[in-house]
């Protein structure tokens, strides 16, 4: 007599494998666009299951501890220091089903380079203006959503 594993069994086994393999504790930036059935693990996060369409942008910044005068990666705790990172990133997701592009532009300063950049006027200006733009666009988007909601109520 043959015994067949149901799909759920295979998915559970896959999730267990994914959970056991885990991810390296590194600074990473990722995007994902899915259409279908997916069980996956985003960097340093728990396993998640998706059925249908989903899109995600994730950045993982590891925490570090000082060990033998070197900064060694470790799991996050409530009081642990965070790795220094300054960065700007822009992701444009087109509709993949009509061959529209995925465009990524990113600039990162990591670790000691981020500390250096934070003290230099040129980089302060870059990150300041980028942050200002993001803030401005966020306010515009919030205002647009608010007016749309008001229009819908009326």
């Amino acid at each position, binding site marked *: 007599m043959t015994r067949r594993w149901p799909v759920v069994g295979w998915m559970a086994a*896959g999730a267990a*494998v994914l959970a056991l393999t885990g991810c390296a504790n590194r600074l990473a930036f990722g995007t994902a666009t899915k259409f279908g059935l997916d069980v996956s693990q985003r960097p340093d996060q728990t396993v998640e299951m998706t059925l249908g369409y989903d899109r995600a942008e994730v950045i993982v910044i590891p925490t570090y501890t000082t060990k033998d005068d070197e900064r060694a990666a470790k799991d996050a705790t409530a009081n642990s220091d965070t790795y220094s990172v300054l960065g*700007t990133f822009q992701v444009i997701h087109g509709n993949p089903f009509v061959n529209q592009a995925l465009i990524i532009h990113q600039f990162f300063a990591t670790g000691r380079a981020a500390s250096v950049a934070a003290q230099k006027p040129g980089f302060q200006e870059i990150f300041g203006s980028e942050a200002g733009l993001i803030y401005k666009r966020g306010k515009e988007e919030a205002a647009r959503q608010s007016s749309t909601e008001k229009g819908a109520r009326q």
Partner: protein
Amino acid sequence: MRTTGRATHHTRRPSRHSAARRSAVRAAVLVSAALLLAGCAVRMGGVEHYVGPVLFRFRPPDETVGAVTQVIRLGVSGEAGSQWGLAAGVVDRVAVVAQPADGPAPGMRPRWTTPLSFLSPPAPGAWNVSLLYLRVDGMPRPAFVVRRTYGAEMTAGAEINALSIGWMARTRAEPPDHSFSVLRFDSRRPMDTVSVTWAEDAPPDLATWISNREVTP
């Protein structure tokens, strides 16, 4: 009763034989197709091996940009080394190596060869086909990877942990520690991807360069 039974037996035997033959032919066709379309990718220690049919293109590094390689595997294919898995369908992987601003490290210039092919050596920038074996030597760990899957895939490793059926597109960028890095990627032109890194003691005009070229207009 016995006569009837025999008659029934005799009339059924040819149909069983033909059904068995059909099943055998079908199995042979499936196994042949699987063997023809089956492949394996092994990446370890700076060397990549692709066994089986793949479609690929690449851009060697120069003084300003790092290496880019795009490999499309078709059919049933396995993966081993830094990433383990099994896929059925199409797996399209683009890997971009970050280029230090002062030029590539010595001995880290990737070379793409198809040792078992009678065709001309693979040409950079153009699509190439490798039916049996593609080897990439001197390939450093990529700073940016794009994986697109059409079909079913189960994979685990440094790039991604996933079990998926359908259409999936994932990217993963790993900016190096203690450095400045820039990445520009457009999925319509993956061979034009730019990934450059500067050490923490970056040149004084880096901020101006970044401001002029990379910051949101």
